[in-house]
């Protein structure tokens, strides 16, 4: 399984933190101009996965992977300085809460200009000018004045636009958006999502969208990866995963999915809690909550099964042996 045309390709990514094996053997492929949604409940390891793609993990985190290729380059041996060159310039990130993602004591425009100064090598004045232009492009009226404001003076939606402006300032090839709309009002959410999609199309930018909102996934992504307890349990084409979810977890997610406007926590939707990751898990991590769990699920980890073209699932249900048994 290789994807030479991939913008980013990660194989067998493992992250542990504080004795907990939080991301386990994750494979990811993102293509330019494409949106991959990483779905999972909180604590499933999706944010860590995203941070690892920029090497922004906490110091105490241990990371290993078979390979990480970005634009055809292996990043595995990159030094911190090289990573810094990569960040914001080629890979950028948007965080969940725009109110806290901005430095409260620095003007918004300045924070955007900072990126430009650093990577585009322009003068401070030019950077400020470009920052205003960026804000304007992202649909902020009176951008010049807004750029001089402090974060606490702006609304959430406006701030998230500013954060996006900061992220795309250097026209990165890959944008990672970690729950970019969770902290926003529903109406603002829609605007931001539209904006992100437009940007992807315009700049042929890859987008890794992290969310637990399946509604958002359906509107944005071409591909989806469902994560549970540090593992990708199902990956595939958006329409297939949505129409015929292969993994019981995905199925549960789909059932729990409310109407588009209603916010609900996935945690509450599925009975039970995720397993304790500080101990090794013998079988399928979802087994304890799985309505279709079998004895083997508790004992042995399932392999990756191709359930349909462009759709993979890690579930014993798809084992040929079981098909035979039943």
């Amino acid at each position, binding site marked *: 399984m290789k994807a030479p045309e991939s913008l980013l390709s990660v194989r067998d990514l493992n992250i542990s933190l504080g004795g907990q094996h939080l991301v386990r053997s994750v494979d990811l492929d993102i293509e330019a101009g494409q949106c991959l949604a990483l779905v999972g409940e909180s604590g499933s390891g999706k944010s860590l996965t995203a941070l690892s793609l920029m090497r922004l993990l906490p110091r105490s985190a241990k990371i290993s992977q078979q390979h990480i290729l970005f634009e055809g380059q292996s990043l595995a041996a990159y030094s911190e300085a090289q990573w810094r060159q990569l960040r914001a310039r080629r890979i950028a990130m948007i965080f969940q809460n725009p109110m806290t993602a901005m430095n409260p004591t620095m003007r918004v425009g300045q924070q955007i200009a900072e990126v430009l100064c650093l990577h585009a090598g322009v003068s401070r004045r030019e950077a400020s000018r470009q920052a205003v232009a960026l804000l304007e492009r992202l649909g902020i009226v009176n951008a010049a004045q807004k750029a001089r404001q402090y974060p606490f003076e702006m609304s959430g939606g406006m701030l998230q636009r500013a954060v996006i402006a900061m992220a795309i300032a250097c026209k990165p090839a890959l944008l990672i958006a970690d729950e970019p709309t969770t902290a926003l009002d529903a109406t603002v959410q829609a605007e931001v999502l539209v904006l992100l999609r437009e940007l992807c199309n315009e700049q042929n930018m890859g987008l890794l969208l992290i969310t637990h909102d399946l509604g958002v996934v359906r509107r944005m992504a071409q591909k989806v990866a469902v994560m549970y307890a540090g593992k990708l349990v199902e990956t595939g084409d958006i329409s297939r995963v949505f129409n015929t979810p292969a993994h019981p977890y995905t199925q549960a997610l789909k059932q729990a999915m409310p109407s588009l406007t209603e916010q609900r926590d996935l945690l509450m939707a599925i009975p039970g*809690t995720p397993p304790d990751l500080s101990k090794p898990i013998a079988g399928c991590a979802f087994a*304890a909550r*799985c309505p279709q769990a079998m*004895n*083997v699920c508790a004992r042995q980890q399932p392999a990756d099964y191709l359930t349909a073209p462009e759709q993979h699932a890690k579930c*014993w249900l798809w084992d040929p*042996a079981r098909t035979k*048994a039943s």
Partner: protein
Amino acid sequence: MQFHADDFKALPAAPVEQMEALAPAPPLWRVLLADVRAVVALVVVALLVFSAFAGPFLWPQDPARQWLSQVSSGPTTARIVAVVEDNPQWQGALVQAGQLMSVSATTTSVKLAWPAVAGAAGYRVYRAEAGEGAGLGVPLAQIEHPWYDDRLQLRERAYRYTVVPVGVAPEGENELSRRATITLTPALTIGRFEAQLLDLPVHNGEVVLPAHPLGTDSLGRDMLSRVIHGARTSMLVGLTAPLLFITLGAFYGAAAGLIGGWVDNTLMRIADFVVALPFLLFMILFRVAMGIESGESGLFPMVLAMVLLSWPGAARLVRGQVLQLRGSAFVLSARMAGASNLYLIRRHLLPNVLPLLLVSLSFAIPQAIFTEALLSFIGMGVVPPTPSWGSLCNEGIRSMLTHPHELIVPAVAISIAVLAFNVLGDALSDAMDVQIRRGAQ
């Protein structure tokens, strides 16, 4: 891959405990006990409080008793010593000495006599501790007669006495050759008057002097028992003053918060003014203003001044909580359900406020201990003979160069106490954070 027959049979239902998503926050004390430093600090605090209040029974030496023959000594063990006559006005006239000699050498009195030097206007007597170098040592006296009775804080160690005749012309030149020295080690004894004073039982002309594990101070008082009794003062101030001002502040703040309106405004303005008073400055000022009458220990004015100046912190804290609760939905609904003020205070206010007060108490205590020590150190605190760690330090600092233990023992005591309370306070507020975080989940 080999499978068992039942591998693909349905798994039994998950255990129920897995469903327990939100365990109730553990009680504070349990969080606290899980923290090693908190446990250590607690043990130290318990020991301090215990030794402050039970210590006098464990080490029953009277801290006021003065072992005058053993002033400023280092650690000693119990000794049996002879009682000797004081004979304070010894007239050495009858001694016909051929050379500098000692008539008697005890730690009560070293009596020296020497042959008179013709033409000498007098004699200077010096005393040095043997092995102290070439200097003559301490000048004891300038006298006219050829004998001397040295009683000056004698210890059981080797002394070298030097007698220098003066006025034998020409000075300077001859002086050295006329110097006489003698080296001797007095035997440890106790004078009769002192033995009588101490009421020591005499057997065969001997008495028992008790051990002093931490040595004695400049009046011969047992350091260990001084420190234990000092702990009493320090703990008393350190515990009562914070308890009082936090209670006072809590009631004040609760009253302000509950009554509200202009009363609240006025009360909190007053609190603001009190906060603005420079603390130490006014501690000193109040202490001077209140004055100390004879026989008072000075504890009461200090506690009073501390209470007068320190209550606003707790008042603000409690008022804030009251206001927060007053505005909260559940109190409104409880009120609508007809709950009384008293019920609200007991059911909602106290559980929220008490842990906060506990944390501020645990930080107020070391602060109070510190303040007491500082004031006693600059002589604005407790009055002797009441020992406190601060006044012990004050006494100790004077003999810092010669008897450092007199400073170090109480200083270490203060430091340990403050340290323990500080660590406990840290642990307590950390535990509270844990609780709040768990509770919020």
